[in-house]
């Protein structure tokens, strides 16, 4: 799976969950840059991505993800 496709899905998920479709999210965005990335929306995004990609994140990943890059890497590892 192409990295760009993964990034697009991750960004789409953040847009949907935070209900802010216009905000610019890039591969370099971190938690503080993304408006609405609070602890509840974090969980909602995790679950949304799990449904999109068909696997479950590990507890440590859910706990430590703090950037778009980390999330994309975790997905691309499983979707080689």
């Amino acid at each position: 799976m192409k990295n760009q496709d993964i990034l697009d899905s991750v960004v789409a998920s953040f847009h949907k969950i935070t209900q802010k479709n216009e905000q610019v999210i890039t591969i370099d965005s971190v938690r503080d840059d993304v408006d609405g990335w609070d602890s509840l929306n974090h969980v909602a995004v995790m679950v949304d991505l799990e449904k999109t990609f068909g696997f479950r994140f590990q507890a440590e990943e859910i706990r430590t993800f703090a950037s778009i890059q980390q999330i994309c890497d975790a997905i691309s590892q499983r979707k080689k």
Partner: protein
Amino acid sequence: MSDPVQIHEVATARVWVVSDFPAQFVSNNLSDCLACSVEVQSLTEVEFSLFEEFQGEHPDWVVVLSGHKSFEVAHFSSTEAGTGMVGPTHANRLAGVVDQLLARHSCTVLIGTLPDMDDGVYGSRARQYPESLRSQALAFNQALIDYAGQTNSVRILDIGLLWTALGKEAFHPGIFYSTRISWSIDLSIRVAEVIAAHVSCDQGQVSKCLILDLDNTLWGGVIGDDGLERIELGELGNGRIFVEIQRWAKKLKQRGVLLAVCSKNEMEHAKLPFEEHPDCVLTLDDFAAFEANWESKVENIQRIQSLLNVGFDSLVFIDDNPHERLFVRSQLPDVKVPELPEDPADWLPFLAAGNFFEVSQVTTVDLDRTTQYQQASMRFTEQQRFTDEADFLNHLQLRSEVKPLDSFSLPRVAQMTQRTNQFNLRTTRYTEEKLAEMMDDPRFSVFTFSLRDRIGDYGIVGIYMLEETPRGLFIDTWLLSCRVFNKTLEHAMLNHMVGQARERKEHLLIGEYLPTAKNKPVAELFSDLGFTPDRDRWLLPLADWKNFNSHVEIQAASSNRRA
């Protein structure tokens, strides 16, 4: 209130969600589930330990949710301490907190159960060991069920049932260990939906009638083409599926839901299986209305709605044909039309899980409802013989028994305040608890009117509640079942109200009409009855008032000697 076109919203439900784990996914989704019908004013999540001290605005509903992971911790501590019986102890402590809450607030409490759970410590035999996690969780549930059985204000929220339906998707360990959120988002949404169903149901949004198509819905095949021997019902083809669907409808009917047929068919073909097929579970007696013809389903559903005189939003329509479903949905958006799965084998699990028939309480009146609608159709036939309405009403020999509210009529009265939408002047919904308080309050007079005629007994069909105010007697509630409109019972009720007012040495009756989307039939009632408008109220001075002539003869019950 002075603007007559302003629509009075039926109610605002204030819900507290109380949980021993972060349950925001329940409370957040609850607002979405309820947005269409009631506004959730405040959702407050508190810990059980703080619950007793919690001072919020008066709640209408309190939802108490126990997380299975917190229960595991409590179970572990109790095993360490050597007691082990954490289930009943935990449940009793919860019951104590709820009792204190109910002493302060008149509200309905929904208590969540624990799911089927175990930790494998006793292998596969956990159920045989009372101290096992599994046995204690079940003991917790049983203690809660016993507690809920003792009071009408407490209901069980069957988390176990929702959990089982979701299986592995009910719990997300990774999220739990990162956040302490014990339920998956999917489970939280399902729980929110069920809470919303309880609230809407008590607000009067109850499914009262199941309308069924026939061909390929109650049997396989087309009766008009295939004939009695070749429709699939019983052992033939998909016949077992349709037998079960009929059993399901029959059980709903036994619980008080009305059944009706809406089918494109010749009447004689449509009736044949119910009369002659050996495996047909439903009989013609089970249906309150039977429309089989070649007109559109929308017209037939409209006819059923007007015959039964219930709201479109209380109808559920089941049809195998997606085009018919789409058509009905587009023309009658209030009717619930389940989007059935393609394979009939999947229908029952789908319908069972869909919660289309939420219950607030079942009363004995529900159980004879179909009989009553059949009697209504006999009355209709008799009416054809009379050209004059008054002659017909006299012929019916209408008699009404009046009783003050008592503990026997309490459930029916609560239900009527919750379900009556048309002849309902103020649409105030009451719970049994609130009514019990009013029963003991001398400022209130609450009377029930039952009605019978030469054809049958309607049961309790009318209620009024008067409240003493400095200015005069205020009509807090006045309602009449839609089955007894146009029988002049409202005149007999007003006569009785006036008698009651005079007995209390009052000289003024004060009425109020709060318009809703559904109570237009009584918009002119006070004016028709001779009340005079006074800003947003209606007044009836009693000094020179003369009784109406009513076709209903009032019979006082023993405890009340008024005529």
